[in-house]
């Protein structure tokens, strides 16, 4: 009986000891922050990791998780401001911290700061720097510069490098629609520029609108003469449609080129995010 009682009391004592452990200590806070990050609660993860980094600003994974939380919460600008305080000397931070920092810079498209960072960083290896620079060139539509940049990596076994090379070649070689030619064609015949860019349905509508207004203008000039307001109303609206169509043809060619580039940039984004 005594033994049973003692064992029960001892168990209760152990449970009370366990219950008194600090739930909010550094280790538990880190675990909770990681849980928030993994479960997609990024705003809360920012708050938790801010607390963790306040308690221990040296711990490398915590600083990375804090910056990642800012980025995933959609506050990349705040993340960069926070990084400036966390890393007084960005050139000296570790490779993993530098990668997360680079992701923040790429997210905000802060190219000047990114180039300065990549050129001075000592822990990023040469391939990393070239890949970041190439990514920048791809997303700023500088594909020729991207080709020169990626050529610095001689390794042909790397999947990302070879894939980057392939899509850069595709971007350079793929046919483009000339905005100037589209505009010129639409100047000659309303809608022809849009036929050239492939938007032939819009082209037909443009031709009907402009042609209809021109027809009405001529008809009203013949009927009422130049001193009547009617033909001038049709002339003004028709001229608007005519000029708008020239502008629209140029825009259509640019949009078509833009979509082609966007497809390539989406592929580049997939490759980048699969690698880093």
């Amino acid at each position: 009986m005594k033994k049973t009682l003692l064992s029960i009391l001892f168990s209760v004592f152990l449970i009370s000891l366990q219950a008194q452990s600090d739930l909010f200590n550094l280790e538990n806070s880190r675990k909770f922050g990681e849980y928030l990050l993994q479960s997609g609660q990024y705003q809360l993860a920012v708050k938790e990791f801010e607390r963790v980094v306040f308690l221990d600003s040296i711990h490398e994974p915590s600083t990375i998780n804090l910056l990642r939380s800012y980025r995933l919460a959609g506050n990349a600008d705040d993340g960069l401001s926070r990084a400036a305080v966390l890393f007084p000397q960005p050139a000296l931070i570790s490779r993993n911290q530098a990668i997360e920092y680079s992701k923040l810079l790429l997210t905000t498209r802060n190219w000047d700061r990114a180039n300065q960072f990549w050129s001075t960083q000592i822990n990023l290896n040469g391939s990393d720097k070239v890949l970041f620079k190439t990514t920048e060139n791809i997303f700023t539509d500088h594909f020729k510069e991207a080709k020169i940049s990626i050529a610095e990596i001689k390794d042909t076994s790397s999947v990302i490098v070879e894939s980057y090379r392939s899509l850069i070649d595709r971007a350079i070689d793929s046919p483009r629609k000339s905005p100037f030619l589209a505009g010129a064609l639409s100047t000659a015949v309303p809608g022809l520029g849009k036929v050239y860019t492939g938007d032939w349905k819009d082209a037909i509508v443009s031709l009907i609108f402009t042609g209809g207004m021109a027809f009405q203008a001529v008809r009203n000039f013949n009927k009422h003469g130049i001193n009547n307001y009617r033909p001038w109303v049709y002339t003004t609206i028709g001229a608007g449609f005519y000029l708008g169509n020239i502008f629209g043809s140029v825009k259509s060619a640019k949009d078509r080129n833009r979509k082609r580039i966007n497809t390539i940039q989406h592929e580049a984004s997939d490759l980048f995010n699969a690698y880093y």
Partner: protein
Amino acid sequence: MRFTVIAFLLLSLSGLKNEAFSQYSAGKYRNMLDDGNIKPEFWQAKDNKNEIQVAFSGLFLFYKNFMSSQDLTVCTFTPSCSEYGILAIKHHGLIKGGLMTFDRLTRCNGLSPQKYEIDTKLRLLKDDPRNTFQVPIVSSLK
């Protein structure tokens, strides 16, 4: 027969709870449907920065209140052509914005929906003069 019907109605009235007639109860069912008389506010016509924007915002409001309000919602885009026009003039100036608007009027035909992203809520094609889409570089998931 008449007596039976009247008696039935009177009896059914007595069976109703009093709260059905009370003011409180009637208030519960008020505002269940949108009030059609609420005047829509057009934010596109606000925050004008110069006289041209004021003039075109006035034209836009006149069109919206007196003409468009009497018509069906037939524009295939969001923002609609008139909203596109005022936004284009505000963001790109009178000349470029005007040309963009004329171009948009010819594109508002619903024949090429594959060219545009669809607003899933409004079920309309997206075409905003203010936005220039940029492909996100870094994933927002990892």
